[in-house]
């Protein structure tokens, strides 16, 4: 019996030592698992993004490279998400533009969950009739937010002062229509406005093949060039009458941030203008 008492006591003490060892390691382990949980959430989000979002926002979130389900290149209908204006700082400029209070994480997550009314950005959360569970919405949001990087946010955002008059602008930048054709695709204008050579190829916005002519009639006293210029920089200032699915909605489904996106390369706008206006 003495042997049993000894064995039992030793076993008990060893158990206590092991538990003590485990307890000491515990804070570090909890930290590791917290990070692992976030890491795996981002991984899940990456898969969801690839399957659901890349068709509109592009495979790398820059709204540059979009494929349909069959793998054909299509115009990107969504905004770039992998961009400083959405991700940098506590209050990225997109939040300011849209007047959103609260945190950045909240902004992104809620936008994904609820979609954007009046735009083609769908509702995703099952709560609002979308296809995703809440944890999945959280996962994609974590993935989108993970694009934030020092390389992207370290550089000062370039702010270009767009002149009021298109003539002043074109005085400094001479357009190149041939280059504009490529830009019309990469800025995803074609995703909504279709192919300039084919009337009726437009999916969301008006067909722009004849905008050089009709643009001048939109607003009395405004030239076609000035009108197109403003339409791109401030889509909401004037809503075009006819969209493919009936009257165009207000607020405009056209992304309002081209002014910002083209700030670094104002030449791009000059090229697109040259393409649309045929000069």
């Amino acid at each position, binding site marked *: 019996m003495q042997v049993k*008492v000894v064995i*039992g006591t030793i076993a008990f003490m060893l158990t206590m030592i092991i538990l003590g060892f485990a307890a000491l390691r515990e804070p570090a382990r909890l930290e590791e698992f917290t990070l692992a949980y*976030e890491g795996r959430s981002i991984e899940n989000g990456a898969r969801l993004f690839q399957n659901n979002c890349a068709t509109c926002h592009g495979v790398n979130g820059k709204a540059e490279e979009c494929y349909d389900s069959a793998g054909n290149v299509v115009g990107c209908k969504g905004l770039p998400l992998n961009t400083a204006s959405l991700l940098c700082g506590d209050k990225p400029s997109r939040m300011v533009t849209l007047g959103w209070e609260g945190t950045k994480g909240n902004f992104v997550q809620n936008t994904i969950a609820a979609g954007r009314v009046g735009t083609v950005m769908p509702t995703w959360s099952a709560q609002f009739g979308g296809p995703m569970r809440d944890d999945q919405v959280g996962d994609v949001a974590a*993935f989108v937010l993970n694009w934030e990087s020092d390389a992207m946010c370290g550089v000062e955002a370039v702010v270009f002062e767009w002149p009021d008059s298109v003539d002043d602008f074109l005085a400094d930048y001479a357009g190149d229509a041939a280059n504009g054709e490529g830009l019309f695709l990469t800025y995803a204008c074609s995703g909504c406005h279709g192919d300039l050579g084919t009337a009726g190829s437009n999916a969301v916005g008006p067909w722009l093949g004849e905008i050089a002519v009709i643009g001048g009639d939109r607003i009395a006293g405004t030239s076609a060039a000035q009108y197109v210029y403003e339409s791109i920089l401030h889509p909401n200032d004037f809503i075009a009458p006819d969209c493919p699915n009936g009257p165009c909605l207000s607020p405009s489904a056209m992304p309002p941030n081209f002014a910002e996106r083209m700030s670094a390369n104002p030449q791009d706008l000059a090229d697109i203008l040259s393409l649309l206006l045929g000069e």
Partner: protein
Amino acid sequence: MTTFFDQVKEMGLKQAAIAKVDEAAERITAGMNVGDIRSALRGDEPRRPNPRLRPHADSFWFHIRPSFYHTEVTHIYPTFRLGWLSTFMFVWETITGIILMVFYTPSPSAAYSNMWNILSNVPLGQLFRNMHRIGAEVMVLVVALHMLRTFITGSYKKPRQFTWATGMILLVLTLLLSFSGYLLPWDQLAYWALTVFLSGAEAAPAPAAVNSNILLILQGAPSLGAGGLLRWYLFHVLLMPLILGIFFFVHYYKVVLHGFSLPPGREEIGEDTAKRVPRTERTYFMPDIFTSELMWTAVTTLLLVAGALWFWDAPLEHHADPIVTPLHVVAPWYLSWSQGWLKLADKTLVVGFIPLLMVSFIVMPYFEVGKSRRYADRRLGLSVAFLFMAVMFISNWMGSPEYRVEGSPEMEVIQEILPGEGAGTMLAVPYEYLTPGTYSPGQEIPGNPYLTRALEEYQAAMGRHSCTLQGNPELDKCKSEGTGRYSNNSRNTAMLDPISTLTIEEIQPNLSTLTLRFEATGVDLDWTSWRHADSNYEEECRFVNKDC
């Protein structure tokens, strides 16, 4: 009755305190004072009247235990402590389970994140989860072995038939308890194992009215969801433990009533002398059996804690998703045999046969009435038992993923090195060693042992599912450039002439894609997994039960 104060006046503080402690000890042990406890521990003869018998009369927990055992049944043989161990495991599961319950909500929107919360936010949470899960498996094993031993020693024979019958019910309850707990993490593993099993219930050979309602009863809805989770949770934490507790007391009452059966050779054939214990052959519960049980408690606890901390990790896959069927749905090993049977016979037949088998086990002692418990007289019975066990082992193997219809070869390669669930070889490579680039199977990366090892496994998997690399003249080229082809046709499911590569690309800060590319006759596939720097798949791989 004098007060403590009076006693102090009478005998002085020291004596009064000693008397008080003595009194307290006597109350707590229901009869033994400090002197009695010390003498018992020293192994002295008890005084008269024997104070060590008093707890058996006065205290609840001791009164359900016998006051002495036949010395013959206190050795490892014949019980192997297996009945005791079953009881211990049940208590163990209850304690660890109650702790986990505190952090768990039975709802599809919360359950899975609760598991991660237990892992990442509850101190010792991972340990408790592992202890509960390892405990569940050990309990099944121990109960099954206990059944085996009572069969082998012929302890089910008259007068212990009813003990055996209640034992069978305990076995079924143990399996159900273990399996109902399986669902609660609400991950893919859980969800699909249960879905497959419940679909079996639908095939039961019963009137259509029963079959069409059985799923409704078992999961509250046509498919497994919130209602089903709640039901299985309640089964698991309330109904089953309650019934198991009740049957345990009936079982144990019968065990004490008839006494532990002596080793078969110790009795005349047809006699049961377990209750007639000569004075010289008695081993008293207090202190011998009690000390022994305390020792076993300490030792088993030590083993389980160490096992849960270092050797055995409870799995947690992705969130349950009714739309995404995993490549292989795996049943827990203790039910694998039924999956094996499903591969052999019609579903309805199997689902009908299992309850029949259970009932025949329960009533077996009432029909198998051979008088002798001795091994030599029971050759037929023992042979049948071992035959049955062999059949169960084979069925179990047939039910395991080892024995299955192979998927397409490229999917098998993926399953082996970059599976959709679990860590696997590739994800277990530490993030800093996942240098972006394109690699071929078997390529050697200088200064990068982790990736090199993973690529070796990759090559081995490609070899298993496309070709035997031995004698392949392009092997070296294949290794060095990744452009060579494996050519072989050793099995008819193999890929013909495949080229395969692994591409690692960092697509976000701290996030890489691992893409396996397969090009072969009739195969053109890219398979991508994502790997975050913090995901810590390495941690899983330090456990023995994880395959990576």
